[in-house]
């Protein structure tokens, strides 16, 4: 197990600077998710950890030792690729056994370890099959077994669930998480799927264009997003945003005035769909569309400020399309961002219009 540290790591591909300056620490035994849209440098960071890419600058440390120059094969890192990257010409047994081929180890122990790794992810019946004869979920498990068989000090997961169907994704999510807790291996998960990150990781590192946008627990990122980017990226259905101009206790957005508390200036208000309610008074509009999602119903409301999403619990629709409604919310649930810097203004609050 290892503690991992990035110290001012830079990565350039030719003239393109993918990661300008990355510093972060991952504690021993922690499950961390690198979350961000595609092209934000999260996979690049992962491959630097694996030793496939060399950092262009800065230092990468495992347990306090600089490993910049250490070759991939010597890092003792297990990795699960998005495509699983199983070796198509080998049986599952040989696939799982492959990492042990390079360690001087008695044959008995090798086979024992393969069986144990296969047991861990429940693929012991599949050992004699070829990867092409396995389902996506089984391939995923085999890839995990292969990553774990050498008892790595660091487990890297590169979008491991994105090729699975929805139900299987749910199961694998739970399994990977409990496996990680059981083995206590330091794990880095790379994903663009916020649900994967929030459900599995102890801590989320949200990245954007090669920089860290925010580091925190899933709850931190959801409740106290430090920037508009995080607020829009985390949460499903996505957050509603209203831009306006705040002065003298009022935020004007279009023709609508919201009660405002805080410093004047151009602000953007973020309102989570699930924290909006249909009330007697508030922002008025008309229901334009209704999307039943099983446990809850998403209403798209056409207001003077554009479409707003409102999520209501319950599976029975209380409102009909075309019905006039008023949207209310608690001022404490509003997130106010500075429009220019997109940073959260922690002291500001916005209430629903009277």
């Amino acid at each position, binding site marked *: 197990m290892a503690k991992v540290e990035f110290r001012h790591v830079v990565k350039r591909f030719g003239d393109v600077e993918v990661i300008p300056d990355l510093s972060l620490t991952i504690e021993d035994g922690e499950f961390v998710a690198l979350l961000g849209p595609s092209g934000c440098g999260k996979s690049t960071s992962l*491959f630097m950890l*694996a*030793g*496939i890419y060399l950092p262009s600058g800065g230092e990468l440390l495992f347990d306090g030792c600089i490993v910049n120059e250490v*070759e*991939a*094969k*010597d*890092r003792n*890192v*297990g*990795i699960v*690729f*998005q*495509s699983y*990257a*199983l*070796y*198509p*010409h080998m049986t599952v047994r040989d696939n799982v056994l*492959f*990492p042990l*081929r*390079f*360690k001087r180890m008695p044959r008995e122990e090798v086979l024992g370890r393969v069986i144990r790794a296969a047991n861990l992810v429940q693929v012991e019946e599949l050992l004699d099959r070829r990867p092409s004869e396995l389902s996506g979920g089984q391939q995923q498990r085999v890839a995990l077994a*292969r990553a774990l068989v*050498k008892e790595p000090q660091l487990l*890297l997961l590169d979008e491991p669930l994105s090729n699975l169907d929805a139900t299987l994704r749910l199961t694998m999510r739970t399994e990977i998480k409990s496996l990680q807790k059981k083995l206590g291996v330091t794990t880095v998960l790379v994903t663009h799927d916020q649900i994967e990150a929030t459900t599995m990781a102890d801590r989320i590192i949200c990245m954007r264009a090669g920089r860290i946008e925010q580091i925190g627990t899933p709850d931190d990122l959801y409740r106290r997003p430090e920037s508009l980017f995080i607020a829009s990226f985390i949460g499903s259905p996505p957050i509603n945003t209203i831009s306006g101009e705040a002065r003298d206790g009022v935020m004007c957005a279009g023709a609508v005035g919201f009660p405002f508390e805080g410093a004047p200036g151009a602000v953007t208000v973020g309102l989570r769909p699930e924290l909006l309610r249909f009330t007697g008074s508030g922002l008025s509009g008309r229901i334009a569309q209704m999307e039943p999602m099983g446990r809850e119903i998403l209403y798209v409301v056409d207001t003077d400020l554009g479409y707003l999403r409102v999520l209501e619990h319950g599976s029975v629709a209380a409102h009909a399309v075309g019905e006039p409604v008023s949207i209310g919310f608690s001022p404490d649930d509003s997130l106010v961002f500075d429009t220019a810097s997109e940073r959260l203004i922690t002291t500001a609050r916005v209430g629903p219009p009277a």
Partner: protein
Amino acid sequence: MVAPGVFGDLPSGPAAAVDWDRMASRARSLRRGKAAALYAFLIAVSLPIILPYFWLVTIAFSAKTGVADTLVLWRSMAVFAPAVIAFWLVAMLAQNRRQLWLGITAIALIAMLAFALLVGPDLHLRNFIFLVEPDFASIVRSRVGEVRGAIQFPSVWRAFGNSILIAGAQTVIVLTVASLAAYYLSRFQFPGRAAMLRSLLVLHAFPVLTLIVPMFLMLYWIGLLDTLFGVILVLVAFELPFAIFIMKGFFDAVPWDIEMSALTDGASRRQAFVWVVLPQVRNGLLAIAVFTFIRGWEEYIFVFTFLIRNTNWTMSLYMYYVRDDVMGVNYGVVSAVGVFYLVPSLILYLAAQRYLMQISIGGVKG
């Protein structure tokens, strides 16, 4: 129900009824006509392609010394041509796989019976005398009383061995060099990579004959003239560009992921190449191997120019001199040598057919 008036402008109701039956029968007859034309074309082109090979074998087993007898050929054709036509007819008319196989088997049986009756009595093995008697030319000539001036032939097995050696060594070298070079071209960036890929193709576009004089001089000065090794080197040089180009396509198709995975699993770059990447391009290697081997097997120009001693003869040279020496006396022997020359490459093709079908040259990335 569609609201009235929305589609009011369109014709509807029985007045505009479509005659589906007429359209269906027209489509049916059109389809049959096309199929008939296609099969007629296939019959027309397949006969002249297969016939020479068929005749080659028939002559090799039937021609007699000093006798110019073509009657047996006409008889064999009388069996063969209807068989080919019947085969295509069966292929066209068969409703399912079972009928097809039944039909083909029936035709094959009838054709074999007819062949045995019409051609069978003329068949013999005497034309294959060259397999056991190196000085067969004198013997064949003596049958017609003209022994003078016969070429001194080496044993055919010597020529056979030389051919195997040239084709085999060439294959091994091309495979090794092409797979390493193609891997590097596919995976690594280096200055001049695009230019190198382009020049690979240009090199292949050269008619090799144009270089025969400089090549001759080069081999003479190096001291490899009249050695098998010299010919092997020349052949390798001409085969490599295309082999590299094809292998690069195969390597391009191997995902980076499994290679990266091998590296993190503890393999060195070389181990990853040997254990993980090479097995993925197995089909490409096999295809290259077969094509290169056959190219070396049928090589004629270079061996004719660069090899002089008759102990260095390859099968193609052997064939050439047999034709030169006994063609007028016994073309049956020439055909028999041809059959003997043909068999190894035929076996190789049949064995490797499955892999050759998979060759495809993907998009070229610079």
